[in-house]
């Protein structure tokens, strides 16, 4: 069972439908007690970093997420949900993130030579940096991005895949049991479905209780 964290900022519908398609049971909840009954968590997110962090704190989900990760069970942040895993963001003034991974969230530079449109919206290609169970049997194919900010200064060992959009953009990140995807796997056709399937498998194999 996967828990989808409902803190009021996510496109929960498309994530949950994608899980249904790949046959993974899930619950959607904002309650730490309920979410704690799961084997893995998805932290979705669309909107602003500052609002999202405020909501997570208000619902005491930040503390819950730390304890969950400490328990060894896997956590996957999607889009803004991935950005929240990092130390801080410059969106709407500096805001501290969850700090589960090292790096900061900054705006995509719009004026480096070629005319680059921000948000980075559309299909872009993955380039893998290292092996990970999450990338198992996934091709270096195209996935669907919609974002204006990206992660800078990531630890190289946490960078699993990237794409290029005027700068190198971390696309799949992962360290121990904390994972993130900057794009929307639930909107990324076959490649996206495979990535979600892999996360669900990693969850089953993580050996955590429950």
């Amino acid at each position, binding site marked *: 069972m996967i828990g989808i964290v409902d803190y009021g900022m996510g496109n929960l*519908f*498309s994530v949950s*439908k994608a899980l249904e398609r790949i046959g993974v049971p899930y619950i959607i909840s904002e309650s730490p007690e309920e979410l704690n009954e799961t084997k893995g968590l998805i932290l979705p997110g669309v909107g602003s970093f500052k609002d999202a962090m405020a909501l997570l704190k208000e619902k005491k989900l930040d503390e819950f997420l730390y304890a969950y990760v400490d328990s060894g069970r896997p956590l996957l942040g999607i889009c803004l949900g991935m950005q929240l895993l990092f130390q801080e963001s410059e969106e709407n003034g500096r805001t501290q993130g969850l700090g589960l991974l090292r790096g900061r969230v900054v705006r995509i530079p719009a004026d480096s030579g070629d005319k680059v449109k921000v*948000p980075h*919206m*559309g*299909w872009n290609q993955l380039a893998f940096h290292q092996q990970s169970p999450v990338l198992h049997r996934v091709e270096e194919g195209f996935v669907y991005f919609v974002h204006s900010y990206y992660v800078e200064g990531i630890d190289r060992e946490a960078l699993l895949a990237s794409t290029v959009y005027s700068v190198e953009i971390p696309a799949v990140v992962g360290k121990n049991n904390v994972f993130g995807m900057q794009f929307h796997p639930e909107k990324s056709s076959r490649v996206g479905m495979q990535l979600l399937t892999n996360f669900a498998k990693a969850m089953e194999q993580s050996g955590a209780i429950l």
Partner: protein
Amino acid sequence: MITKRIVPCLDVKDGRVVKGIQFVELRDAGDPVELAKIYDEQGADELVFLDISASHEGRKTMAEVVQDVASQLAIPFTVGGGINSLEDMKRILRAGADKVSLNTAAVLDPELITIGADYFGTQCIVLAIDAKRDEELDSWRVYTHGGRQATGREVISWAKEAVERGAGEILLTSMDSDGEKRGFDLALTKAVSEAVSVPVIASGGAGEAKHFFEVFTEGSADAALAASIFHYKETSVSEVKNYLKDRGVNVR
């Protein structure tokens, strides 16, 4: 770098896809979900559903269609037609659409763009413009109500205003080219694409694969939409993409 997108467009009336010949003689062309899946398999990057239902009942059915499509499709899709308020946007986005497309309602009340963008984010709001060349103006004029009504607005300035208000994308239909199958309006597409900082989806005039190549290169479009050539199987999304790939255009 990001790929150029091929976007099939489906006209939906009372829950069914319809095909028309020059906007008349509508006939049933099947189930939206089934057709959407076929386009997905062919490699469509995104889909647009245009609700052309005239009745309230038909609009309610559209929300159900959106839900069915969303539950079976793992590519982004936009819904337009008859979206006049924040409530309408909420209804469609909650049903599972990724973006809503505003046209006439946004011209009548541009604040609607701002309200939608503030609530859902700019990436959710597509502004659709129906444009027609005006020689006197030496530019293009905005039309509303399915192209039946001229407005005083000039296309470039309207596109700029809409982007300032929060439109995340422009769906630009050339009324002069639409249905002619002689290619997209390259001058119009280029002019708008260069004037705004958001992606432009060119629409109207696709007749063969070559036209997509032209609009992506000469026309500076980020995406290109077509309906009848895909519906009538004159070509397929995969054929168009192979043509583009062979000519060095970056596609998925």
